[in-house]
């Protein structure tokens, strides 16, 4: 390799979740925003992100993956995929103790693999001489050869030997003794090397061998000494199997083999000391917030009760940073007996089950955890209780078990929910997770004002504790919840969530689905189907079927609105019926349930399936039948049956404000249906008055969709312009309805419409070679304007690409051949 290239060094650690590995990799590539873990890790996405990041520039880079044998089966498969798609300017070096199943034969055939095996790494005599010379050791040719043969050129062995030789008064004698011994090389050299160290260094090395990583302060604590920091630095400088982990050289780790041998020596010489050392390390790590290491050492010290409490406290912090595997391994480190003796671990079991979609099992474990919590006085440990309540909400959210669960956990919102055992504040992550889950459950059960408040608090808190994932989750839902406030604020929160998600590379994470749907929904309400469709398409991709019924219900409603607004009634009906099916999967009433039922019935009626439509209404519960949405549906059925009086009778409660409604749009719809009824009755003043009321209500949020869904184009067109105070809105609505004319019943008609004058002007440039910016210059408009025209032209012509658009335009004789 020539020229300058960057080196990214990543060590695969067996105890870490795979996500940690990829995040370190991304950070090493110089991702603009520090990569942040997500609770739902997806390996394929991670590979894509890494490749995208890598393709952003062409600077040569070498990625070294050390200890690649520690990668799990899945992680290895992802690394293999990563290597297979690697751009030409990047190279990967894998260091492994054994051969990896990488499917490397493909690359080998292509001559793209260089393999360096143990044989290639052996030190020759001259290399051995050079290594020793660097440590200031000179040996006779004879001794040098002996040493090289005895160690078989093994690099680590030679380094160990060098450490002893450097302090030995008679190096030749050392080599002679070594070669006379039959003992294993590492064993012999370790013992010799350790013996030659001063006692305080020996003690430091042995006592700190229990640690995965060590710093000066921690070493002082374990070895009962001071000045460990400089000893560690000296050892690293002496090349003594001590390496620093950071550029400031505060954290160090020992070479694996070295540490392993030191631990054995510690256990052999002072077995009673081991538990005490772990206890001290545990306290040090926990005090400084290194919770995972703290828990591991507490377990190693055999203090199962403390370890259980610590772990139960940490469940959500670990889950929310995607450390599922770590959580699992911490739980499994408890002996079977301890897991039975400490029922608080049931919370951990429940959390892990829920992440794997085993909700029943999760609920069972949660019951055990709850019984345990009840045995203790309420003020004893709020953290544990909040953890249980949060998981309950989370399960309720995923299973659509709404409303009922809120009563059980309403204390979450109270200040008491913010404290925990010994009055210390609750972990911010736990509190924010609790608020998020509470807000979402409230939102889907229709308590939008409460939801708005709790999600807002959750978003603020997660910003304060710098937890972007929770912040995006809260904001993503806050969009929908704040629809009560205004569409503008709903869009603002949703856009914020999507933008934040992009910044962290989470554009494919399911958490932003509610935000995308809110954006799609509000645009479709306002008659902007093109923008709405764009958001909707993204949301569809991020909503895997049968994982989150409440979100799916919203998805189907918005999709139905999209089709209904463009008068594709059959497609709309399919979506509304899917939405109803989602409701049937849930244990509680979804905020949009009556909307799904109402629109399913009304759409059937408009498709001429009157009997079916009536049956839908007849099957609804009395409470749901009394909602404004279902009254509107009944009115729509009556209108299709040419019974205007019946329609007006159904609408009376809605128009009087007695029937519960989801949002003003139900009211707009009711006024428009009333207008149609009056039109049938030839009561023109009432027609005008009803339309005027609908327009007045629609004006604020630009609720254009109801005009399309109720087929009010004809009525609106007849409305004398001078009689309305909303002439501009009428024009806009008519423009929109012209775009998607109401077609015959049940037929999915392709969306075709005439191009505007400006669009025709742009169209003329389509067959040319001019780029968009060239066209913009020609027409004296901005590139964005041209982009908008392009989008509209493509959409109106049903084309996906420029060539297709040209072809379609020629077929339609909009362009000459």
């Amino acid at each position, binding site marked *: 390799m020539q020229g300058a290239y960057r080196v990214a060094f990543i060590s695969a650690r067996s105890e870490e979740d795979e996500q940690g590995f990829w995040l370190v990799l991304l950070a090493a590539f110089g991702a603009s925003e520090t990569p942040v873990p997500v609770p739902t890790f997806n390996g394929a996405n991670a590979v894509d992100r890494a490749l995208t990041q890598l393709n952003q520039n062409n600077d040569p880079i070498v990625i070294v993956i050390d200890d690649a044998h520690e990668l799990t089966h899945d992680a290895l498969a992802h690394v293999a995929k990563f290597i297979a798609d690697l751009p030409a300017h990047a190279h990967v070096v894998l260091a492994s103790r054994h051969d990896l199943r990488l499917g490397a034969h493909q690359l080998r055939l292509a001559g793209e693999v260089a393999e360096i095996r143990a044989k290639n790494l052996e030190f020759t005599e001259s290399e051995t001489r050079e290594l020793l010379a660097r440590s200031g050791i000179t040996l006779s040719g004879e001794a040098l050869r002996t040493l090289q043969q005895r160690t078989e050129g093994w690099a680590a062995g030679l380094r160990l030997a060098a450490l002893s030789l450097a302090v030995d008064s008679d190096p030749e004698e050392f080599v002679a003794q070594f070669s006379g011994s039959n*003992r294993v090389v590492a064993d012999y050299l370790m013992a010799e090397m350790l013996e030659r160290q001063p006692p305080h260094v020996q003690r430091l090395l042995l006592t700190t061998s229990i640690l995965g990583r060590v710093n000066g302060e921690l070493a002082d604590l374990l070895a009962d000494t001071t000045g460990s920091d400089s000893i560690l630095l000296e050892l690293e400088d002496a090349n003594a199997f001590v390496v620093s982990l950071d550029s400031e050289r505060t954290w160090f780790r020992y070479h694996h083999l070295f540490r392993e041998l030191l631990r054995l020596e510690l256990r052999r010489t002072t077995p009673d000391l081991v538990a005490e050392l772990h206890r001290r390390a545990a306290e040090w790590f926990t005090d400084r917030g290194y919770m995972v290491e703290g828990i591991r050492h507490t377990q190693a010290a055999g203090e199962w009760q403390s370890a259980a409490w610590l772990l139960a406290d940490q469940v959500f912090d670990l889950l929310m940073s995607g450390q599922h595997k770590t959580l699992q391994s911490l739980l499994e480190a408890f002996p079977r007996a301890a897991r039975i003796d400490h029922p608080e671990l049931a919370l951990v079991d429940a959390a892990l089950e829920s992440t794997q979609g085993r909700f029943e099992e999760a609920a069972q474990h949660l019951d055990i955890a709850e019984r345990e919590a009840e045995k203790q006085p309420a003020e004893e440990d709020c953290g544990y209780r909040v953890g249980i309540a949060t998981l309950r909400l989370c399960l309720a959210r995923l299973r659509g078990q709404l409303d009922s669960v809120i009563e059980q956990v309403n204390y979450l919102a109270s200040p008491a929910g913010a404290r925990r055992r010994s009055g210390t504040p609750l972990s911010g992550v736990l509190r924010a997770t609790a608020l998020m889950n509470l807000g979402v459950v409230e939102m889907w059960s229709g308590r939008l004002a409460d939801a708005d408040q709790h999600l807002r608090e959750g978003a603020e808190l997660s910003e304060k504790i710098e937890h972007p994932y929770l912040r995006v989750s809260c904001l993503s839902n806050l969009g929908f919840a704040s629809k009560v406030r205004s569409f503008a604020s709903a869009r603002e929160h949703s856009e914020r969530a999507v933008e934040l998600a992009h910044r962290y590379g989470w554009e494919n994470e399911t958490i932003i689905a509610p935000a995308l749907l809110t954006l799609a929904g509000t645009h479709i309400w306002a008659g902007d189907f093109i923008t709405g469709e764009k958001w909707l398409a993204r949301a569809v991709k991020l909503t895997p079927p049968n994982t989150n019924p409440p979100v799916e219900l919203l998805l189907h409603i918005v999709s139905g609105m999209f089709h209904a607004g463009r008068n594709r009634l059959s497609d709309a009906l399919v979506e509304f019926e899917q939405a109803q099916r989602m409701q049937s999967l849930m244990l509680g009433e979804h905020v949009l349930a009556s909307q799904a039922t109402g629109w399913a019935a009304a759409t059937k009626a408009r498709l001429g399936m009157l009997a079916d439509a009536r049956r839908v209404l007849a099957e609804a519960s009395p409470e749901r039948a009394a909602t404004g949405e279902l009254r509107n549906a009944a009115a729509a059925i009556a209108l299709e049956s040419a019974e205007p009086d019946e329609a007006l009778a159904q609408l009376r409660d809605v128009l009087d404000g007695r029937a519960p409604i989801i949002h003003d749009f139900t009211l707009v719809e009711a006024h428009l249906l009333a207008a149609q009824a009056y039109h049938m009755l030839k009561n023109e003043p009432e027609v005008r008055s009803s339309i005027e009321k609908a327009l007045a209500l629609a004006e604020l949020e630009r609720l254009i969709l109801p005009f399309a869904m109720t087929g009010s184009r004809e009525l609106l067109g007849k409305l004398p312009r001078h009689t309305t105070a909303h002439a501009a809105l009428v024009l806009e609505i008519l423009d929109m309805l012209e775009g998607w004319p109401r077609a015959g019943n049940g037929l999915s008609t392709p969306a075709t419409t005439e191009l505007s004058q400006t669009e025709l002007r742009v169209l003329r440039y389509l067959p040319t070679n001019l780029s968009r910016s060239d066209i913009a210059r020609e027409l004296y408009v901005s590139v964005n304007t041209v982009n908008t025209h392009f989008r509209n032209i493509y959409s109106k012509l049903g084309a996906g690409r420029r060539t297709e658009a040209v072809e379609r335009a020629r077929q339609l004789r909009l362009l000459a051949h």
Partner: protein
Amino acid sequence: MKLYSIRVKGHLGAMSLAAFPEMVSQQRGADCVLTGVLPDHSALFGIVTQIEALGLELVEIRLLVPNPDQSERKG
């Protein structure tokens, strides 16, 4: 419960032997033979992992068949 004998290259000192508390060691020529009763496969793999971690060279693993005279005959 099965009896295994595991042969590694070289003579193990006290330090390395501490890694295999459940095994008895014997020097055989240039090799060291570790013998012991292991409860299951996981225990066996645990020992192999230790051997790997210590950079020892594994020569052979043998499942020792109990002397037919001493073991119960199963019909």
